[in-house]
């Protein structure tokens, strides 16, 4: 443990052992700041690996762009898949903090910042999104003007000016701005506290970003109200952008794929995977980052039940789609089912089900696993692998249907396997996320100092008759 801070452990008997931790209020600021500014070797190693992966991605991208150009979407299927995966997971991640702040759940306190920090990745998403726009087939069919196949199906019904490029890009910019605003507002009190101890570029940055903060009652009220409003706004925005993205870049690319449950399914999967990713980051922080004094098992245990619910919900949405298409028995629907699920991409679909549903479900129904730190984290990792496979299957298929302007899918196209540059791009996508996050974690503390300190006011162990139990206070 890098820190010298001592922490009181709560619930020291039986199944509650290590469930809650109660950091010492007076030591939190210096301890977390110290950890933020430190550069342990494990961090450097992770940074190195992430940088290498990111470099591979850049190489893969450069070769793909120079060899295939942006004339047709086919070669960019795997790029779209990894972009979708990164966007799915990191786009929804800041929402985790907002949602549990809204429900006033005390267990969220140590994971708030981990969640909000993904806002920085959201900014990188804008850059990664631009090549995808270039690879999209135009809405108007250049070869069939004046025929029934004049335009492909799209959300932009009457093709307003600039669609889809301008509007899609604006969506991503708006989303990133909102999430960065959440991060800034949430981290302001922490940066203000760290102004005194920070040196170098951090001191200047903290002063610039949080110089206005003195912690008056009025400022706290405004900050909390602002976070609540931005959170609500971000919630609506992320759902909207996900709906636009999955419809434009997957559904509309497959002729006749008319699937109204796909956007909610994508959203549910984004909640499942972002929670999974946050649990993995928490596990790493707890195990190797020296943050065990802030992270009891309670966040894992509480999040695990939600992860189980989201896992079931995702499967439910998938079944709702499947049974509607299966039952309809229209030939065009059958072709879509065969294409995306049961024929060329069957192995990917089965693996997707295994990792997105079966493994997390079978793990999370066991109480002892839910009460551990590793159980929910491992289930989260499985959900992430499943989501990656889901995106690979969906986007590799959607970008390679051949004629995107057809009224319906008249045949079942063959599967398109990734080449080495596709694999580089997929690895690169993961590397870039890790790299950006690791760098951001050295600028903003990974623990939301003010929230953890606030939590110490409202949580304690106390005696009731003969037993010792957790006391949770709710001020409103």
């Amino acid at each position, binding site marked *: 443990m890098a820190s010298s801070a001592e922490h009181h452990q709560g619930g020291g008997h039986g199944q509650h052992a290590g469930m809650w931790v109660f950091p010492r209020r007076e030591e939190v600021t210096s301890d977390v700041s110290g950890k933020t500014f430190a550069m342990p070797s494990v961090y450097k190693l992770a940074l190195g690996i992430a940088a290498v992966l990111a470099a591979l991605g850049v190489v893969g991208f450069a070769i793909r762009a120079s060899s295939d150009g942006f004339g047709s979407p086919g070669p960019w299927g795997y790029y779209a898949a990894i972009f979708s995966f990164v966007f799915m997971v990191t786009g929804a991640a800041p929402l985790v903090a907002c949602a549990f702040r809204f429900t006033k759940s005390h267990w969220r306190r140590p994971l708030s910042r981990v969640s909000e920090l993904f806002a920085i990745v959201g900014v990188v998403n804008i850059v990664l999104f631009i090549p995808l726009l270039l690879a999209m087939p135009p809405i108007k069919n250049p070869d069939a003007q004046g025929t029934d196949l004049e335009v492909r199906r799209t959300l932009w019904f009457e093709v307003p000016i600039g669609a889809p490029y301008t509007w899609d890009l604006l969506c991503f910019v708006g989303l990133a701005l909102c999430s960065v605003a959440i991060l800034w507002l949430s981290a302001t009190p922490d940066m203000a506290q760290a102004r005194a101890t920070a040196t170098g570029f951090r001191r200047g940055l903290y002063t610039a970003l949080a110089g206005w903060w003195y912690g008056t009652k009025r400022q706290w009220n405004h900050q909390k109200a602002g976070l609540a409003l931005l959170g609500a706004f971000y919630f609506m925005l992320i759902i909207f952008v996900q709906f636009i993205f999955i419809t434009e870049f997957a559904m509309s690319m497959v002729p006749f794929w008319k699937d109204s449950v796909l956007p909610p399914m994508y959203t549910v999967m984004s909640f499942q995977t972002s929670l999974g990713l946050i649990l993995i980051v928490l596990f790493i922080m707890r195990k190797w980052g020296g943050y065990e004094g802030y992270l009891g098992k309670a966040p894992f245990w509480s999040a695990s039940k939600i992860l189980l619910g989201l896992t079931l919900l995702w499967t439910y949405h998938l079944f709702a789609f499947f*049974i509607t298409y299966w*039952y309809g*028995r229209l030939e065009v629907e059958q072709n879509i089912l065969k294409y995306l699920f049961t024929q060329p991409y069957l192995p990917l679909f089965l693996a997707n089900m295994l990792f997105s549903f079966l493994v997390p479900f079978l793990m999370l129904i066991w109480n002892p696993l839910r009460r551990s730190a590793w159980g929910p984290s491992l289930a989260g990792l499985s959900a992430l692998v499943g989501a990656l496979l889901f995106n690979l299957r969906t986007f590799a298929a959607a970008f390679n249907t051949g004629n995107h302007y057809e009224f319906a899918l008249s045949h079942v196209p063959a599967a398109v396997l990734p080449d080495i540059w596709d694999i580089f791009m997929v690895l690169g996508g993961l590397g870039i996320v890790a790299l950006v996050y690791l760098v951001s974690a050295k600028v903003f503390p990974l623990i939301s100092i003010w929230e953890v300190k606030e939590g110490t006011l409202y949580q304690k162990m106390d005696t*009731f*008759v*003969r037993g010792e139990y957790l006391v949770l206070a709710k001020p409103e």
Partner: protein
Amino acid sequence: MARRPILGLFDNANSAADAGDGLRRAGIPETDVDFLTDTPYPEGAFGEREEPHKLYIFPFIGALLGLTSGILLTSMTQVAYPLVTGGKPILSIPPMAVVCYEGTMLGAILFTVLGIVFESRLPKLKAGLYDNRITEGYIGVLVNTEETQHGEVEGVFGQTGAVDVKKQ
């Protein structure tokens, strides 16, 4: 000597817990002492013994039986009356899955309820020593022990402020 119950009534939880401590000190085994309340207190609030149970097994058994029944029902009836509808196979797995799912959940829930009743040791056909004031907020400390120890138990109840002591 026969084992007979004795019940001490307390008007607050701390006194009842004191009585529990006193009984332990007097050598009354934990298994012979029960705390009767009108609402659930947190586990261990009276320093009482842990109550192990196997309720979690019941839903699994029920689910398995429900699933099996669902599969048998949906497959055997369709094979026995093979009427093709909507061009679907006689044994169509998605619709079978829906009915099997309901069967599984029904089995799990029925067995869970049976498990709750069984593990709670209900129904209790023979009325034990009880006092109606327990549902008025009093806490009953029920001791099932040798009659020779009743004097000692009554002593503990008296010292810890029992408002009433009842014997069968």
